[in-house]
């Protein structure tokens, strides 16, 4: 069980995310078709596809550089709404991780808080608005609570994944306030948000890799 996230651990987390998302990408596309444009699956597949390149390009062993490279790779993808948000998240992680070679549970939570803050500079979406924020915000809160409660990174990620999943499922009955689904009004209800779902997959993959 991983107790702190160093370069190798982060690589493992990223690869787990890549595998899980590519595995489930058709489902993500179907969720996005419900109220959006049906491309979240192909976009996430493309986004995850650049992670391995970023890993290969980044200086072996340098955790902040890895996070920066992944952030820029995600920004560089033709990523619709997803690319800017995910890229910004990882750039936020990278800034917070600057100068550190490994992150314990507290530093890891702090990094995600910084990532979330960066994302919140890009979007006004709040939990309840039926976006990826419905998964991201509770996941980051879970990381913080776990760290404050003295849990290790693995347990923290497990809690975060559970929180993200609950958040994603809860979007089912929400009415979208952001993104392409916004224009549907009431009709956006009835299916979970694609972006929240993919965010929960990322945390679940992280948790599994850290376990």
């Amino acid at each position, binding site marked *: 069980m991983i107790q702190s996230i160093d370069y190798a651990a982060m690589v493992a987390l990223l690869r787990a995310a890549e595998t899980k998302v590519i595995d489930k990408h*058709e489902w993500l*596309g*179907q969720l996005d*078709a419900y*109220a*959006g*444009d*049906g*491309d979240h*699956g*192909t*976009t996430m597949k*493309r986004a995850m596809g650049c992670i391995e390149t970023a890993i290969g390009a980044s200086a072996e062993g340098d955790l902040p550089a890895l996070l920066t490279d992944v952030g*820029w790779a*995600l*920004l*560089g*993808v*033709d*990523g*619709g*709404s*997803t*690319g*800017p*948000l995910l*890229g*910004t998240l990882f750039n936020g992680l990278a800034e917070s991780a600057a100068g550190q070679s490994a992150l314990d549970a507290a530093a890891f939570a702090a990094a995600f808080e910084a990532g979330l803050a960066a994302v919140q500079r*890009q*979007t006004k979406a709040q939990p309840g608005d039926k976006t990826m924020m419905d998964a991201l915000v509770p996941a980051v809160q879970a990381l913080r609570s776990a760290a404050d409660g003295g849990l290790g990174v693995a347990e923290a990620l497990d809690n975060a994944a559970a929180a993200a999943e609950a958040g994603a499922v809860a979007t089912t009955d929400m009415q979208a306030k*952001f*993104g*392409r*689904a*916004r*224009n*549907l*009004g009431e*009709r956006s209800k009835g299916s979970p948000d694609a972006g929240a779902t993919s965010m929960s997959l990322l945390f679940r993959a992280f948790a599994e890799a850290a376990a």
Partner: protein
Amino acid sequence: MKKFINDPDNLVSELLEGYAAAYAKKIKLEGNNLVVRATPKAAGKVAIVTHGGSGHEPALSGFVGEGMIDISVPGEIFAAPGPPRVLDAIKRADLGAGVLFVVLNHSGDVMTANIVMEMAAKQGLNVKQILTHEDVAGGPKSEPENRRGLVGCVPLYKIAGAAAEEGRSLDEVLAVAEKFNDNMATLAVALTPASHPSTGEFIFELPEDEMEIGMGQHGEAGTGRMKLKSADETAEIMINMLLADIEAKAGDKLLVLLNGTGATTLMEMFIVFRKVAQVCAEKGIEVVRGGCDEYLTVQEMAGFQMFAAKMDDELIALWDAPADTPYLTVSGK
């Protein structure tokens, strides 16, 4: 859906290659799949740059050329390109007079644009942004964030591009583009669904006897699902919503465009245009310029977007000014 494609992962690179081969006299590819003019604009003029997802051909890159766009940054199917390529385009496009960056109001496009504008500011680039949000289905003018950018970007490229070719400053080009932007409105209707070309799946469903007014341009449904109406009834509902939105009144002059989104025939669009012209004439509103074509498609979706803009003499002159792009050429005579 049946489509002529090869590997679904290569759609965009292949379509751009074919586009460049077909229109080599007018456009070419540069850098990382940027669509640029074959003959660049003269130095010292404002450049027009835009970005957006692919799968809407001819938009956006079909309007690269003299009098319209200088560089277009095509993303993946329905997915806006990321900031780095857009930033590269802005740097390449600047001919010393700055860049007008035209952004359509869609979540991903806007987030990319915001990051681009932050980076551009850091790097001291001379770029101003204009956001189109003319979809009346999204809400009233007072809630611009709810209104999507639909086909209105195309005539806006024309207006801004003509002003830029005239040698106007960046502030002047932005000002006339904003004047046009403030006076335009679009509404879409769909009859049959579009399929996503990578997944082959239909993005939405419409019963055989229904249509949907207020449709987005990526298969995002609208809120006006209703029984199929005749061309005249549909035209009347839609033009009245547009006229109300732009507050058109007797004596006003309009540019009206009907944009086919895929499988809808020109025959149908002409029949709809006929009724639009009649409704306007009854209200004393003059349709001074018009057009029926596929400017911005949604794959094979049957339906169209109806666009109207209030025009003054300056805007009419810019609309009539020469342009030479693969999908809109104006002789200027």
